[in-house]
């Protein structure tokens, strides 16, 4: 330990640290409303997404509570109201929470910093995309004023074009606008990664989260327009009575399903790919170990993005599409299993001979691998033709996609939030409280959703208000699990907010990360870097050392010179 040189411009021994960070750079409400800073936009997304998560979560709890007994449970909640509950839960969680969560909130915040850029390529477009999100969300809320909607988040025709609930058009318009928000974010990320890499940041030196966000952005740009067109057609049919999907007017309802899933299957990868990117970061940083199989993980992200466009028909094995198409789609569907498996095995190998810190982000990372394994393996049951015929549209599917969309995508988002929380707000949360929160969420999640596999394989259909009494025991267990999980999330909200006021000051590099965001102060300055950062191997942790004075890790410059950045 001879010459330790903190790269952080934030001198550790200064009594009063410089106030120039992105939070204090300018002040006042307007400085936020019109901000072009990717970090502030990311933070606003975060608040908006977490607010929506709270609302969507309350609907989930209402759904679970209603299902405690067959038929009516909550006074005043009849089948119509229940149908609106699960529709709102699904639509909010998919369109307002999971799709924008990682790219919009965390991606916006960390992508330019990890890349070594000052901002995204198009800061105004970035702010525009956030306001489109706000408009979409407002329209979704307006739909409640117009009588709500009970179509399910899938908007299947001809039910969606004939149902008497008046909120269908506002919410569909809202989702249409949210689509543009997503497209703009994707476009921005693609251009940023292509054009704003500083010297030395080659494609294969990029942190894997950036590969994942890049692959995600490609899907956002290419698939989302299809959703937009489809929803526009739905509006046209409902408003002008032009028969596109309704057979009573000469349309084809199965066509709608093709269009819808052509977007909505890739959308699943818009949710899971960035989550996988976060896990690659969390696992390697907290294991302090070079990521294993960098190129395989990077290319598997791109492979998943490509395959994601070719498997939509697996949502339609019972829909009446031709048996030949079912067979082809089933075969291609299995191909997605391979890159997913590659990632899991590489994460495991990364743990081998690592130096693993068992803390909250790492627990979420390990929890992700556990939950994603279950979500992925049960995907085999659903990709297989004859078993899917039995399981389609039952709780087995509900359990499967919650393991993937919530247990994986959202858990990774929460893990990433803990991982970058010190960077974003400059405060440390209480580690013990974090572990309690994770434990509650993890146990609650599995109790809630594992039981639903058994419900579904025994034949319990989804979207049921009333059900056969023999299913009740599993529903009760599942509901209890959802309360435990809710307690975990409220607890997490509590200690994160608490950390803002009384958390310890965060060092620049609390975990020992090596990628560029750990080299600027916490919170980062307005321009991210005072000087163009020097780019090394972002997974070479040999140069990372603990610095007692700093209270965090620092990078030993003298070691950087000798270590080779080769993979």
């Amino acid at each position: 330990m001879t010459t330790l040189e903190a790269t952080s411009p934030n001198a550790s021994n200064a009594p009063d640290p410089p106030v120039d960070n992105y939070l204090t750079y300018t002040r006042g409400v307007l400085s936020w409303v019109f901000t072009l800073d990717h970090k502030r936009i990311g933070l606003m997304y975060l608040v908006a997404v977490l607010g929506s998560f709270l609302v969507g979560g309350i609907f989930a709890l209402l759904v679970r509570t209603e299902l405690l007994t067959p038929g009516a449970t909550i006074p005043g909640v009849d089948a119509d109201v229940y149908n609106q509950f699960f529709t709102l839960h699904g639509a909010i969680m998919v369109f307002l929470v999971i799709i924008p969560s990682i790219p919009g909130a965390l991606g916006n915040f960390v992508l330019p910093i990890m890349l070594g850029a000052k901002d995204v390529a198009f800061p105004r477009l970035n702010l525009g995309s956030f306001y489109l999100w706000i408009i979409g969300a407002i329209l979704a809320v307006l739909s409640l004023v117009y009588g709500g909607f009970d179509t399910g988040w899938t908007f299947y025709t001809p039910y969606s074009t004939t149902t008497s609930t008046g909120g269908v058009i506002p919410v569909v318009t809202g989702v249409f606008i949210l689509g543009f928000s997503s497209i703009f974010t994707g476009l921005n990320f693609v251009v940023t990664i292509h054009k704003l890499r500083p010297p030395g940041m080659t494609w294969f030196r990029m942190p894997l989260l950036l590969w994942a966000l890049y692959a995600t952005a490609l899907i956002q740009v290419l698939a989302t327009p299809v959703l937009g067109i489809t929803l526009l057609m739905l509006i046209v049919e409902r408003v002008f009575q032009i028969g596109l999907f309704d057979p009573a007017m000469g349309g084809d309802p199965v066509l709608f399903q093709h269009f819808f899933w052509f977007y909505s299957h890739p959308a699943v990868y818009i949710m899971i790919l960035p989550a996988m990117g976060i896990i690659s970061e969390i696992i390697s940083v907290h294991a302090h170990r070079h990521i294993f199989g960098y190129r395989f993980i990077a290319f598997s992200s791109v492979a998943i993005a490509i395959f994601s466009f070719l498997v939509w028909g697996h949502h339609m094995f019972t829909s009446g599409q031709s048996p030949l198409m079912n067979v082809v789609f089933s075969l291609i569907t299995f191909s997605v299993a391979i890159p997913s498996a590659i990632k899991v095995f590489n994460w495991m190998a990364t743990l081998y001979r690592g130096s693993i810190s068992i803390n909250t982000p790492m627990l979420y990372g390990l929890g992700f691998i556990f939950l994603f394994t279950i979500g992925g393996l049960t995907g085999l049951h659903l990709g297989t033709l004859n078993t899917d015929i039995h399981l389609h549209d039952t709780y087995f599917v509900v359990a499967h996609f919650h393991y993937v969309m919530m247990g994986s995508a959202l858990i990774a988002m929460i893990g990433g939030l803990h991982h970058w929380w010190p960077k974003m707000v400059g405060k440390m949360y209480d580690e013990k409280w974090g572990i309690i929160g994770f434990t509650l969420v993890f146990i609650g999640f599995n109790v809630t959703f594992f039981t639903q596999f058994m419900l579904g394989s025994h034949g319990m259909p989804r979207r049921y208000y009333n059900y056969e009494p023999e299913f009740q025991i599993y529903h009760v267990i599942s509901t209890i699990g959802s309360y435990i999980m809710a307690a975990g999330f409220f607890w997490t909200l509590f200690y994160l907010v608490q950390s803002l006021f009384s958390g310890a000051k965060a060092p620049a590099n609390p975990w020992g990360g090596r990628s560029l965001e750990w080299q600027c102060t916490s919170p980062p300055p307005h321009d991210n870097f005072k000087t163009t950062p020097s780019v090394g191997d972002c997974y070479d942790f040999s140069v990372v050392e603990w610095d007692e004075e700093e209270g965090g890790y620092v990078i030993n410059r003298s070691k950087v010179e000798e270590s080779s950045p080769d993979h």
Partner: protein
Amino acid sequence: MIDLTSTVVDILSATVVTVQDMADVAAPAAQEATSAAAAPKEEVRELGGDFWMPPAASTLAPATDFAFQVITWLSYVFFFGITIALVYLTVKFRQKGTDVNYDAGAPVHSTPLEVGWTVIPLLLVIAIFFMGFKGFLDLSTPPKDAYEINVTAAQWSWSFKYPNGATSNDLVVPAGQPVKLVMRSSDVLHSLYIPDFRVKKDVVPGRYSYLWFQADEPTGFVPEDRSARTAIGHHLFCTEYCGKDHSNMNRKVFVLDETEFKEWETTQARWLDEVPDEDLYMVAGPKLFLRCSNCHSIDGTAGTGPSWGDQTSGSLAGLGTLWERVTEGTSPIDGGTRDNGGKKLADYIGPGKLYETPEDYIRESIYNPGALLISGYGPNMPHFRGQLSDRAVDAIIGMIKNIDQFDPKGRYVGDVPN
């Protein structure tokens, strides 16, 4: 009048299989007495089957279950392998203190490993695919000699029509014989699912879809006008979300051995003809009402459609039974293909008007429900053209006229002194 009725009784219900039942038909009052005496017994079916699967009751179920077991066991191997490795690695290589024990010699890449965990899963999923593929070919290829049943799905009921003209609400099938369902929907998407048979197929408006199965074990039989849940028979669910009563769009599948089935089919086709004319609405009404009861009540409770009985609350409070509202023509009209805006039923019913008699109006409401809509109710009712014979409509009109003689469950209770 040729023998129309025996072929057209498209509605449901009624199962006059035993001599005892026949006796009940002849004496509705006696039936009431016995059913009042025997309290309805709720029988809850057990979950059955094993940890994962419900009982397997069709000839193709074992193939599906085998595929499920293979995938599940494979999943156990991977799941426990990954979980144990995860815990072991985390514990073994955990960091003590804050110092990073960076292991410079730890491998960061291994082509043989990468190829290994690419190729092995690939081979496994290809094997799984073929297993599912073979099972699916069997599931989607109905045998040529299958017994065909026509299925009509509507919000929110099923109607099964048999080759001899019989119709039913529950699906009744012969044992040991392939059965092919030819399915259509009269409104939105539905999906017919029988978990015990491992079969499911969407029912799509504007096109026909097929589903086939063969069940070898008879289940026993319970008539459709049961007043309590029964544990006998297989569940039949709607599994494509179709609106308000989606979760109530479920019935039973009964498998009968060949002779029992023949007998049931014959009786089922003829029951309406065999009801004596003077007992028509008292006997046939309740059986036909089973199909209507999803949306229409008798006791005045508001449903998806207007109640047939006295309205005690809601926007139509004090307007009396459906028959009174129709004969007096008081109900406000608020929509429908013949809506002229702001009118009342009275403007449409009477000599020289659109409907000569109230009966004509009720008849049109059954055959062409969208014509006039009572205020507060949407265009939700499917039409019953080709499904209900004149005789069936007569029975329903008779029941609506004399709704005071029926209890809230639609059972005939005779004249009750006020």
